[in-house]
């Protein structure tokens, strides 16, 4: 196996010497003159080198303090004096590397145990920070370098599988954190807005990685009447409650040796929260009406679409349960708008995956054949004027023109990954259908490039933009205030019936929410004829991308 190649950026030669003499399992990146001592001595030279030779580097080892001439210092806005710039030059270099090569792992190293980052605001993201103080720390450095290397490789491997992490530093940090938390017995708190992929990650990443032999079960309490929630979670013996005609296993028992994903944990009634706390403390459940407790070994993943500490502050969530779930294992999944650097990668992946799905594949094959490609030609996305990479002949290209791409980039993506996936799938399907329609009508297509209709993108985005833009009201022209069930809605044509239905449903839910001042039980009466189904209403409300906090 090839050795990981380390680029040392350090004003002195000591670190390069340590790698060369003490870490034979690593290789220093060969450097052309005038670089000496196995390292690059300052930021500008390092950035220049990486611009040309990024592919030659697996990991960067970066020093913090650079004693170099003023003209070789990168600017650091927090530092005004050259001395201070030297002291924290590593941070300036790290930022520039981040900007230009966000996928390149960097281990930031200092021999100063008193290094204070508090007065220099910087988002270190997933980068390792290592204190190298003495010979005992060589292994610490070795571990950091190898971990950074393998992490970056794993990201590429994982991305080829089910979970698409992207390469934003934040998501790499989430992945690294989850990979550690998945293996332990501690519960995990997953926080994130609707559509950020909490349940998907819980099943496809955390559970898979946990090595647990039991099943992955989802606890969705939105459709369970409040009085049956304890039996649903912990089980019940026959006759324990009215209508209980047989023993019933609870989710904890069913998920034994596996993983239990509790969605919207913040909505669990307070008395059930107390029972949940006891189960987490003792790893035992007592089914309703049972004399004996059952031992259970379940990894709990508690998901919430609002910060749980805020729910604690509002008195909606027990602080002792919050502490038992352990705030230390809290992981926040970023909304798409906070990881825009991943948008292009995710958009491409979703479109290309959609084209490979069985129900779309046949269509793709037909179009490919009609434009003179082999039937099994793959679909690839091209954005703007980017050139087709060499070796990509024989593929069916879906071209998103620059203005359309800008529109996608500027969109707020209130529905996050879920919304992005739906939009991209629609882009794939509609573009292939439009091409096939043209072919059937005898329109001769000469090129394997299909331009995605800019109007289609506008229409796909317009639904959520209309409703979710800050301060924008839904298009209610009038409603009968005497009967909240009546609402007049103005509609525009949308590309699919599903999109139309969503627009209508969102407006209706919003209208009911306002009319009943946020009382989901009353909304449940109007919608389902049953106040106890308020959880189902709340769930659908969230699924539609509506947020109580913002209303």
């Amino acid at each position, binding site marked *: 196996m090839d050795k990981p190649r380390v680029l040392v950026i350090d004003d002195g030669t*000591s670190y390069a010497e340590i790698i060369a003499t*003490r870490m034979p399992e690593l290789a220093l990146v060969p450097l052309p003159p005038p670089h000496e001592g196995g390292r690059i001595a300052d930021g500008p030279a390092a950035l220049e080198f990486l611009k040309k030779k990024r592919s030659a580097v697996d990991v960067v080892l970066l020093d913090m*303090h650079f004693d170099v*001439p003023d003209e070789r210092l990168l600017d650091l806005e927090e530092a005004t004096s050259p*001395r201070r710039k030297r*002291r924290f030059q590593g941070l300036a270099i790290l930022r520039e590397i981040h900007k230009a090569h966000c996928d390149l792992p960097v281990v930031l190293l200092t021999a100063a145990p*008193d290094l204070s980052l508090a007065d220099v605001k910087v988002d270190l993201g997933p980068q390792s920070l290592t204190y190298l103080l*003495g010979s005992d720390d060589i292994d610490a450095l070795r571990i950091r370098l190898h971990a950074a290397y393998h992490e970056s490789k794993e990201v590429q491997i994982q991305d080829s599988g089910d979970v698409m992490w992207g390469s934003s530093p934040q998501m790499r940090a989430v992945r690294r954190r989850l990979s550690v938390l998945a293996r332990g017995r501690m519960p995990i708190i997953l926080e994130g807005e609707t559509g950020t992929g909490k349940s998907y990650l819980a099943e496809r990443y955390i559970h898979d990685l946990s090595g647990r032999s039991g099943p992955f079960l989802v606890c969705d309490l939105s459709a369970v009447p409040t009085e049956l929630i304890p039996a649903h979670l912990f089980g019940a013996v026959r006759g324990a409650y009215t209508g209980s005609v047989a023993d019933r296993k609870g989710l904890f028992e069913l998920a034994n040796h596996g993983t239990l994903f509790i969605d919207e944990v913040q909505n669990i009634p307070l008395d059930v929260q107390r029972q949940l706390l006891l189960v987490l403390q003792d790893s035992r459940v007592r089914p309703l009406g049972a004399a004996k407790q059952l031992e259970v070994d379940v990894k709990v993943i508690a998901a919430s679409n609002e910060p749980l500490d805020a729910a604690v502050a509002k008195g909606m969530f027990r602080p002792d349960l919050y502490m038992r779930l352990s705030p230390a294992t809290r992981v926040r999944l970023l909304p798409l708008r906070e990881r825009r650097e991943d948008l292009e990668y995710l958009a491409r992946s979703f479109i290309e995956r959609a084209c490979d799905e069985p129900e779309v594949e046949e269509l793709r094959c037909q179009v490919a054949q009609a434009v003179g490609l082999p039937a099994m030609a793959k679909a690839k996305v091209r954005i703007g004027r980017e050139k087709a990479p060499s070796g990509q002949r024989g593929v069916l290209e879906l071209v998103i023109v620059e203005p359309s791409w800008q529109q996608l980039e500027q969109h707020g993506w209130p529905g996050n990954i879920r919304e992005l996936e739906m939009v991209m799938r629609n882009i794939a399907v509609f573009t292939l259908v439009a091409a096939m329609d043209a072919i059937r009508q005898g329109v001769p297509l000469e090129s394997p490039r299909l331009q995605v209709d800019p109007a289609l993108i506008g229409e796909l985005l317009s639904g959520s933009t209309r409703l979710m833009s800050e301060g924008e009201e839904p298009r209610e022209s009038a409603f009968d205030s005497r009967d909240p069930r009546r609402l007049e809605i103005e509609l525009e044509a949308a590309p699919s019936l599903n999109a139309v239905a969503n627009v209508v449903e969102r407006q209706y839910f919003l209208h009911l929410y306002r009319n009943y001042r946020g009382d989901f039980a009353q909304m449940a009466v109007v919608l389902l004829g049953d106040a106890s189904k308020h959880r189902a209403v709340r769930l659908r409300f969230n699924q539609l991308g509506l947020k109580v906090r913002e209303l």
Partner: protein
Amino acid sequence: MTKEDLLDALAELKHDLGKYILLPVSFLPEDASQSEVRAALETALMRTRVTPRGGVRGAEDLWSAFSEECRESLGPLQSFEELQAVVVRALSWAERLTNPVSSLDRAALQADLAEVSAAIARVIEEVEGG
């Protein structure tokens, strides 16, 4: 000197003297020979800083430059007095370099050199606290 200037100067000293005086000896292999220890000591004290600016500076030179700049501001501090004593002790190991037959106690040498960085840290702490 302002407090911020002083802290920057101390950080520089820690980088130039505290770090580079220690690394060559600290990262010798466990089974390093006496001549390897001697070579490392020579690097630590005589070629403490080989900078990209092209200069080679010894530990004594680095210490003199710092003292000249900051002695007045740091003079009253107890931790600075201790630092001076620690640096003198570390620099005194240079005498052994002139005597090729004297053996070097690596553990004692390493402890003395490591103490420089720790003593600088204590000065930084006192300046920050004051």
